[in-house]
């Protein structure tokens, strides 16, 4: 009797398998990262300890983690929606930047309006900016069948260059002495914080509302049902008479808009001015992809994963200063975690089984 190991599609994906897979993948990720640290002469246990303490071990750390979690949450919940529809919006980073440009531009143009009005306009403008940046790949996909992965990615670099152009050029503040920053925002254009922390709570509230909105949309509405069907099995969607193009357009516009809101949050809530693109968003749009996937595309869970990744980012900053590591270190975390999250995807979809082979 000869046996062979076969890879076959798993039929029943129970929640326990899914959670198990996520935990397993995280554990694997942390083991691999520890190994990488070890081989590069960094003491992994020390590093992990500092990350934990830095991100979650103090009030300051927690508040910073929450602050970083805000754009990750807005981006992440939007991407969870898009990925549910099997629309791969890789351009969230660019959408964040466009939101920052439009929102920030409004703030710079109308500094003396009453605060409530101005901030509202900035958010609306930022949403529109990100939404347009999401609309472009959606349009190209529905009209020309061009894959959204490549177009949304290209637009990230266009947005980034646009920001650079503005802050080195027409929008550079006269008092900045040649540095690529706009004039500082007026106080009307700045978001309030909680106490002495940097948590710009209006954006946080918007983010939480977005989470609830997306959750209700997906679980309880007709259109959300269509989004889920189209994402799981597009031919069934067409068979049922659903308008696939409409789904694609909607999810890209919405996830783009939410990312745009994150951009406004960053410039109006943290920096209070426009600056070079890496300053506005150090890769939040890409980290949001991890946030969405780690949450298994469940909008409610993105709250947890966004906070987790935010803490990781803060912890990363902590070990940078403490252990004299370069800022790129955090990318190792992001990359390895993402890698194992998709490997977890594989574990949940397939399983190994033994079968007899007859000869």
């Amino acid at each position: 009797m000869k046996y062979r190991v076969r890879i076959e599609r798993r039929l029943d994906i129970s929640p326990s398998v899914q959670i198990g897979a996520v935990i397993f993948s995280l554990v694997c990720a942390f083991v691999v990262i520890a190994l990488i640290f070890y081989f590069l002469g960094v003491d992994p246990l020390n590093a992990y300890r500092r990350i934990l303490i830095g991100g979650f071990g103090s009030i300051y750390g927690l508040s910073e983690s929450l602050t970083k979690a805000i754009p990750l949450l807005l981006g992440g919940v939007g991407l969870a929606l898009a990925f549910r529809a099997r629309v791969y919006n890789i351009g969230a980073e660019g959408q964040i930047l466009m939101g920052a440009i439009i929102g920030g531009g409004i703030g710079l143009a109308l500094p003396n309006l009453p605060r409530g009005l101005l901030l509202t306009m900035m958010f609306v403008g930022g949403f529109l900016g990100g939404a347009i940046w999401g609309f472009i790949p959606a349009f190209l996909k529905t009209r020309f069948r061009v894959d959204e992965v490549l177009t949304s990615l290209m637009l990230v670099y266009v947005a980034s260059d646009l920001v650079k152009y503005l802050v080195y050029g027409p929008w550079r503040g006269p008092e900045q002495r040649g540095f690529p920053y706009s004039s500082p925002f007026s106080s009307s254009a700045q978001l309030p914080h909680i106490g002495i922390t940097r948590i710009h709570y209006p954006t946080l509230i918007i983010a939480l509302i977005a989470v609830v909105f997306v959750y209700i949309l997906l679980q309880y509405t007709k259109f959300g049902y269509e989004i889920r069907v189209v994402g799981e099995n597009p031919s069934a969607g067409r068979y049922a008479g659903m308008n696939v193009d409409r789904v694609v357009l909607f999810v890209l516009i919405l996830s783009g808009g939410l990312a745009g809101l994150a951009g406004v949050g960053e410039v109006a809530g943290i920096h209070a001015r426009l600056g070079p693109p890496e300053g506005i968003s150090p890769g939040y749009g890409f980290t949001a992809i991890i946030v969405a996937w780690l949450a298994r595309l469940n909008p409610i869970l993105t709250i947890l994963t966004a906070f987790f990744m935010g803490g990781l980012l803060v912890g990363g900053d902590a070990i940078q200063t403490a252990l004299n590591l370069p800022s790129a270190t955090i990318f190792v975390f992001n990359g390895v975690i993402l890698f194992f999250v998709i490997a977890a995807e594989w574990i949940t979809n397939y399983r190994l089984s033994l079968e007899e082979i007859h000869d």
Partner: protein
Amino acid sequence: MSNDPSAVLMKGITKRFSGVVANDGVDFEVKAGEIHALLGENGAGKTTLMNILYGIYRPDAGEIYINGNKVTIHSPRDAIRLGIGMVHQQFRLVQTHTVVENVILGSANGFRFREEEVRKKIEELANRYSLAIKPDARIWQLSAGEQQRVEILKALYRGAKILILDEPTSMLTPMEIEQLLKTLQRMTEDGNTIIFITHKLDEVTAVSHRVTILRQGKVMAVVETNKTDERQLANLMVGREVLFRLEKEPLERQEVRLRVENLTALNDKGLVALRDVSFSVHGREILGIAGVAGNGQRELLEAITGLRPLTGGKVWLGGKDISKASVRERVDLGLSYVPGERMTALVPNMSIAENLILKGYRKEPIAKGFFIDKRQLLQFANQLIREYEIATPGPEKPVKLLSGGNIQRALLARELSSGEGVLVIAYPTSGLDVGAIETVWRILLAQRKEGRAILLVSDDLEEILTLSDRVAVMYNGEIMGIVEASQENLEKIGLMMAGATRIPEEQWV
């Protein structure tokens, strides 16, 4: 006949696929230099047998001898080495590449591409067998007939002496068919051996020397072509005692619920798939569309349900012209459809309940404004589960956990609950076990009694005859005729399925 060993000898070939016996102790022999036809309807086992010969499948039992030598064929590579070539029904060509590039793909002798040598060889072969082709033409520029020539050249280039063709004329124009048949004759004059799979009687009688008829996995007969006639062949192909396992009481049919008139449509390759198709389906009747798969049935179903645009003709649903209606409009007007590929009508990972509302989620009371009322959803789902006795681990569980029979129950439950009076259903019992088949048949007959108009497409003649009141036969995109579903008409149906006869429209039932 001489004492030379046969080119191909397959003895006692048996092959099972998850419980279904595709080939049952088949003996198949082809003499060198002969054109041998393999005739049968769908599921007879012809393609399986040839796939075994070409190394795509391994037989569960049996032996193969090529030119008198016992061989085992593990993969197409082995088959190619033994001089066997196969031209499939769906061409395996790279559209953007040239003829030359396609012919030599994977026949790598070395790294360099000896262009002159290759061209010469291709041109030689092309000339010898009248396979006129421009070596530098790109595949997308070629007609179906020309593409087929490339496939044949591919096999010949690798030294095939035994050539298998699977339904070779399904995509060809009459002129191209003539050309192909001439080519095949020329090839046998050179000592090549040709086996071709078909369900078309006129091809069998035109060129083959002998024909083996398969039915339900077994060899029915092996005859010399010039010693038989179409009627005998048709009978061998489809003739059987239809068991009529279920009682179908004769009912008086009601008014017309679905009508198609002069439908024409193209297939995915841009060729004509439907030619002037017209028929109507009444309430309290089942109209069965018989025919070998690939004769336009898929395109017909898609045209009726709105998944394929028409190039001519009209479709009426209960008196309303839906020819230009979208899929969604047709669904909302009550057109129910259970497709042959069940997975295009279901979302495997979503719950049973959510699948059950795939058609009805826009209607009250399940829909409430923008929202879906979950309680109503569950109630609706449970109701259907009870009514149709769907065995489930729970309505919230993913639908892919259900067995084939229960999936079909669920699909029927869904479609019959939201439809108004017309059901279009294709290959309803493919892949189901005997118990499930009977259940589905009972449901359909019960629906018929309640007044539904049912359009049934199937390649299983027993199913067609058991369930239908009338039978329409599709061949080459046309309706060859419509007759009453009875044992006496079986031969006529078989002839029509094989393209050998046609009934003028005035005589249709």
